[in-house]
């Protein structure tokens, strides 16, 4: 089989090793999928084996719910708290078991994976009948291999082993931390004498796996798959089979059988997903090893010759199940490394599904775990649950989606193109998240009730997820484009994307906790509804509660404040390094090939931070003037008896907050209309500056009119003004920014015509 692979490279190739590779990202995805699915399976095993304990806990909770309802009706707060706490105590025995099962299951999968990973080299040596390559038997060959290792600059030399009987022409790098091997088949050894160029290309490719440090990931990925099969999938099948037989023999064909089949198809789909992600991880590493080997060779030619003699997948579906990529694709990637910077939409979808599978299980685990911590007040439980789950999952999304976005944006901008498909990748992650959540929703504790109602009621949540992730990835791309000039002028992009990802993670923790809360509201209300006519009420309930939670949680949340500041601070902070980028540069890290000319980045309008600052200050001062006038007007027109009451003071305070929010939105709109580059972020910055001035003004005027001031009041005023302002300014800014962009585009199109 000879493939027709083009051997050409017209422009300098981008360096795929400048950013973390797809191998890393897919490996992370695999681990998430394995852990999410294992959590699901162990949650189910716990349910199957401890159903009596669960029923006892639930009946106890129901008893106390009656007391809760009575206390609520009687507006007896103390009795309500007592009843809620008693209900919480009821769940503790089952929560303990569930937590132990879920954490124990995940730990078990991890431990078995570590053991398998550790034993893999021994297995490979035994199965491949590999014997050490003896220097006495093949002196010329061993000297040559040592020379190749020196060329590869390996920190630790591998042991070369050989299966002399294996007639295939194949090499394999394997091993574990601190002990690596390169296996040569008998066929490959003969190639040393008959086709030295191909031999060299194959061995360099294997050494490239060692240099790229993907051997550990590869074998840990394989070990994770086998650990998942052995300690999660097999117990699931066994327990399901026992349950199936028991249901059949007891002639219980209804609920029990339905539940078993319902779980079985979900686990089947999840397992298939784990396998596909594993195959994708193993495929990804090959591209990078090819590129590395070609760098050492100073030419892609020898490797392309070998690739041309590889077998291509015969059927389309084999492309996703094979552990080796299509050789034609490998050849194209060798010539055009930009392909390793593109965002794959299927990968984004898979990532979304993996996270989606994990979401209900992590939430369930957090719920059980937090129930055991009696120090946490009952009313705060849900916030902690959402925050805890977001804290676990957000960094994973941020790292995987964020890094892909950084790479894609970087590659597009360096090539003078507009980053393409970033928003769509966000949508794909969103769709995956919704699908994954649906996949692992079957026995989520909050999903007791009509699942159709829950699905319908979670549609608004799904829409919010899609929009949020679309905007989130676009925001990361914006940040990358803002930092591009500075990054290009530096010796490595690592510091930039690391700091960027930390910020992105922080923002996402806050956003995700809120999204989880919305979902919880939808599923909880969906569980209460009984008839289709209740749906309308349910929708209204979901909308009102979600908006209420959003406003309530946002206004006083320090996390929200930090997240809002990060939104504009992360991209606009590049302004401080603007002097570093005045001269065109040629960064050694960006390209594989020596480029004859410096990178000419697409011309971008400058930041207008000074302008935004002035607009913010002016807006803030206008607010202070208005408040002062209102305060004087109120003092002159409203009698002391009325304006001295708590209600009047509160009314004045909240009116000031609303006015501040409106003015901040106005400030943002003016800035967006004026600033060409990153207008919406400049708008948010201006709104923030305006908000700070407004806070100072409010506190100062309050003091001026005889009011008091303390730290608590200062914080409340500051967070209300800033968070309230951003809450209003953010959607308005986005809409105005879109309109302004469209107007400019159509005007430009008119001029061009």
């Amino acid at each position, binding site marked *: *089989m000879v493939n027709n692979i083009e051997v050409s490279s017209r422009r300098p190739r981008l360096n795929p090793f400048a950013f973390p590779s797809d191998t890393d990202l897919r490996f992370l995805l695999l681990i998430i999928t394995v852990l999410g699915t294992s959590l699901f399976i162990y949650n189910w095993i716990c349910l199957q084996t401890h159903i009596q304990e669960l029923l006892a806990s639930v009946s106890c909770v129901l008893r106390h719910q009656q007391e809760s309802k009575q206390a609520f009706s009687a507006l007896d707060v103390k009795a309500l708290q007592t009843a809620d706490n008693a209900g919480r105590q009821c769940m503790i025995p089952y929560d303990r078991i569930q937590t132990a099962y879920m954490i124990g299951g995940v730990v078990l999968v991890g431990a078995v994976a570590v053991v398998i990973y550790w034993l893999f080299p021994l297995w490979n040596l035994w199965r*491949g009948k590999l*014997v050490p390559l*003896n220097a006495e*038997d*093949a002196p010329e*060959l061993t000297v040559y291999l040592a020379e190749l290792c020196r060329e590869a600059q390996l920190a630790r030399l591998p042991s070369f082993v*050989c*299966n*002399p*009987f*294996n*007639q*295939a*022409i*194949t*090499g*394999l790098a*394997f091993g574990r931390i601190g002990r690596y091997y390169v*296996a040569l*088949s*008998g*066929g*490959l*050894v*003969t*190639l*040393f*004498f*008959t086709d030295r160029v*191909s031999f060299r290309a*194959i061995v360099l*490719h*294997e050494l490239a796996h060692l240099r790229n440090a993907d051997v550990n990931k*590869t074998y840990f990925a394989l070990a994770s798959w086998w650990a998942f099969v052995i300690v999660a999938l097999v117990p699931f099948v066994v327990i399901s089979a026992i349950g199936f037989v028991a249901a059949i023999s007891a002639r219980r064909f209804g609920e029990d059988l339905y539940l078993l089949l319902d779980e079985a198809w979900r686990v089947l789909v999840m397992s298939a997903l784990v396998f596909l992600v594993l195959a994708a991880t*193993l495929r990804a590493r*090959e591209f990078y*090893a090819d590129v590395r080997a070609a760098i050492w060779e100073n030419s892609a030619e020898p490797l392309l010759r*070998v690739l041309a*003699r*590889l*077998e291509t997948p015969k059927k389309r579906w084999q492309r996703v199940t094979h*552990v*080796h990529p299509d050789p034609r694709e490998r050849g194209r990637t060798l010539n055009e490394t930009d392909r390793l910077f593109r965002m794959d939409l299927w990968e984004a979808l898979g990532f979304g599904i993996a996270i989606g599978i994990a979401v209900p299980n992590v939430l369930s685990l957090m719920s059980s775990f937090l129930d055991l911590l009696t120090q946490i007040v009952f009313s705060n439980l849900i916030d902690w649950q959402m925050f805890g789950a977001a804290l676990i999952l957000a960094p994973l999304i941020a790292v995987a989606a964020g890094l892909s976005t950084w790479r894609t944006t970087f590659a597009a901008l360096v090539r003078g193109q507009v980053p393409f498909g970033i928003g769509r990748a966000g949508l794909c992650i969103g769709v995956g998240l919704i699908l994954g959540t649906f996949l692992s929703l079957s026995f989520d504790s909050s999903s007791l009730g009509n699942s159709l109602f829950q699905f319908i009621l979670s549609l608004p949540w799904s829409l919010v997820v899609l929009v949020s992730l679309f905007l989130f990835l676009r925001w990361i791309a914006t940040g990358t484009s803002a930092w591009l000039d500075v990054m290009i002028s530096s010796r490595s992009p690592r510091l930039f994307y690391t700091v960027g990802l930390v910020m992105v993670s922080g923002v996402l923790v806050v956003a995700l906790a809120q999204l989880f809360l919305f979902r919880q509201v939808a599923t909880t209300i969906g569980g209460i509804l009984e008839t289709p006519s209740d749906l309308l009420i349910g929708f209204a309930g979901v909308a009102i509660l979600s908006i209420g939670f959003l406003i309530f949680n946002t206004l006083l949340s320090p996390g929200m404040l930090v997240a809002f500041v990060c939104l504009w601070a992360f991209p606009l902070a590049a302004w401080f390094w603007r002097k570093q980028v005045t001269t065109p540069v040629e960064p050694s890290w960006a390209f594989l090939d020596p480029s004859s000319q410096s990178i000419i980045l697409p011309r971008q309008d400058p930041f207008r931070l000074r302008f935004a600052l002035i607009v913010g200050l002016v807006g803030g001062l206008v607010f202070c003037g208005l408040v002062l006038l209102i305060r004087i007007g109120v003092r002159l027109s409203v009698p002391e008896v009325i304006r001295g009451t708590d209600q009047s003071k509160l009314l004045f305070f909240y009116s000031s907050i609303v006015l501040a929010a409106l003015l901040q939105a106005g400030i943002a709109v003016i800035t967006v209309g004026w600033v060409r580059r990153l207008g919406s972020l400049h708008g948010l910055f201006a709104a923030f500056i305006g908000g700070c001035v407004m806070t100072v003004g409010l506190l100062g005027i309050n003091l001026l009119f005889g009011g008091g001031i303390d730290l608590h009041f200062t914080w409340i005023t500051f967070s209300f003004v800033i968070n309230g302002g951003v809450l209003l300014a953010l959607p308005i800014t986005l809409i105005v920014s879109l309109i302004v962009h469209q107007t400019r585009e159509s005007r430009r199109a008119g001029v061009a015509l």
Partner: protein
Amino acid sequence: MVTSMQNSLVAERAYAVVAQIAPEELPLFPAISTAYFKDPRQALKYDAEGQDEMLGFGMAEAVSLLTPTVLVVMNEVIILLTTGVAKSLEDEGANFFSELAKKLMKKFRPQKKKEQHNLPPLQSLTSEQLVQVRQQAYEKARQLKLPDDKAHLLADAIAGSLVQAGS
């Protein structure tokens, strides 16, 4: 002892044949011959096709290693010589095998490598007997599914190696 001597003889002659018809396999020879003498059947199991590693990188096609076949055929030939040919030589009053074996054993000892090239000529193997050995080698090679041209090449090399050993 006889088996060990016979194995040494087979290995020695097979090495010479491999060096002649497939020199690229020489680095593999010690490992293959050791495994072959340990368990001839197991060693031949690999003969049919290459064992492709799931994660390995290489070419789609496999080479066909001659060394295992050479060992098998040479073993067959040596057995033939020790039984059939030796018997036919009894009438002429010469113990062909013991003479040949003694000479080859000397060659196999690394300290006495110089002697290898100065062995006295073997006069006992007639041209008819060589033809018989060659034919036997050819048939065995074909039986092991070696292509016709390679089987001829191997048979010629084996016959030639015996002449060399005797000359």
